[in-house]
């Protein structure tokens, strides 16, 4: 769950353990003073205080609408449950991030169903594509027609919310044989330019589908040129990197950078190396909702880092 966190960036072993306790539902992020903190780690009073001096946002990931295999024959139902959890959060999130694999096979009806289900939460949603969202004949044309209007290249972009700079990156396009996820030179150049005008004190949140740190290269769980991109982020005091793809919680802290992966809302995948392949993991039906979820992130002015709370759809 936590990938050998080192205690540099203010994330303690206790924090990591608390994150583990919350593993399973979703992640609610609180951006407080630059570093996302998950809301589950805060009491209700603290959550209310957060609302006054910062904001929260939700991360969902890997909804795989269209998936109907034994690991979860009802991926639409669990996405709807995830949205019900979002609506029930103690602090209303400002918006939602979806870190990719919205659909299973990039089909129009899958995109339609996903949009309808996700729309039920009543929040603005910022998307990045997963590899399952760009397998149409146009290699992502269908995705970009829906979500790429204000983006560059294969769908990357940035936006600002209450002093926090959010950067959505695409690391699932134009992949090469034998490689991992890839950002590509054009996107990295854009990132360098995008960051130029920002002060070192600006809190940064980067979100992309495949982890931007090397989780397990044997299964392709990493991004080959992430180090170059992260090099441009070194000068910032608070950087939070949110990913999906691996359908399980994992966290790592390296200097001022906190890496976090969210659960899927559709099906779990095995821990690195724990199975012959990273395919969908079949768990007993009554355990499924304990390994699916959302993340809630809280940002509070003047505090670091952002707080990330992972909520499971049900107790595991």
């Amino acid at each position: 769950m936590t990938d050998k966190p080192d205690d540099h960036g203010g994330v303690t072993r206790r924090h990591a353990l608390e994150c583990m306790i919350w593993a399973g539902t979703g992640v609610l992020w609180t951006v407080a003073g630059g570093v996302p903190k998950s809301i589950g780690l805060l009491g209700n009073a603290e959550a209310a205080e957060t609302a006054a001096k910062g904001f929260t946002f939700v991360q969902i990931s890997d909804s795989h609408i269209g998936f109907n295999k034994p690991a979860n024959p009802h991926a639409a139902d669990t996405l709807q449950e995830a949205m019900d959890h979002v609506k029930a959060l103690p602090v209303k999130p400002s918006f939602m991030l979806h870190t990719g694999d919205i659909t299973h096979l990039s089909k129009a009806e899958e995109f339609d169903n996903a949009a309808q289900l996700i729309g039920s939460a009543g929040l603005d949603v910022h998307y990045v594509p997963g590899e399952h969202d760009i397998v149409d004949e146009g290699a992502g044309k269908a995705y970009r027609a829906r979500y790429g209007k204000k983006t560059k290249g294969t769908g990357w972009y940035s936006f600002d919310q209450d002093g926090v700079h959010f950067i959505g990156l695409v690391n699932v396009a134009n992949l090469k044989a034998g490689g991992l996820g890839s950002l590509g030179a054009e996107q990295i150049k854009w990132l360098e330019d995008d960051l130029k005008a920002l002060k070192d004190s600006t809190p940064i949140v980067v979100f992309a589908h495949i982890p931007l740190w090397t989780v397990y290269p044997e299964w392709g769980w990493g991004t080959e040129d992430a180090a170059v991109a992260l090099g441009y982020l070194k000068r910032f005091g608070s950087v939070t990197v949110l990913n999906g793809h691996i359908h399980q919680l994992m966290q790592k802290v390296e200097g001022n950078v906190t890496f976090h992966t969210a659960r899927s809302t559709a099906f779990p995948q095995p821990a690195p190396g724990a199975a012959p392949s990273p395919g969908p993991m079949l768990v007993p039906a009554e355990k499924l909702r304990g390994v699916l979820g959302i993340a809630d992130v809280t940002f509070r002015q003047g505090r670091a880092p952002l707080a990330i709370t992972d909520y499971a759809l049900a107790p595991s």
Partner: protein
Amino acid sequence: MSRLRIVLSLVLIVAASGVRAQEAVIHIDNFTFNPAELTIKPGTTVTWMNGDDIPHSIVETNARFHSRALDTGEVFTMTFADAGEIGYFCGLHPHMKGKIIVKP
């Protein structure tokens, strides 16, 4: 000559030439192409069958051909006429690689 007789004549010509289409199968299971390296004769038709609960695709290393995403149980076929080596990988999971060697 009736249309039927023309067809029969063509069938006889093909049969007499001794050309018989050869076929080979590559199974995709557990995020692996099996066999990962396949040697075939020119003219062989290769079928990839996806047995995983996750889609995979076949992309030639230099993007000279690619399949659509194959869902569980779906297949992709391709006939290789010329001798040579063809490298390929999965467009969704590029760590999955395979090779086809075509030689007479």
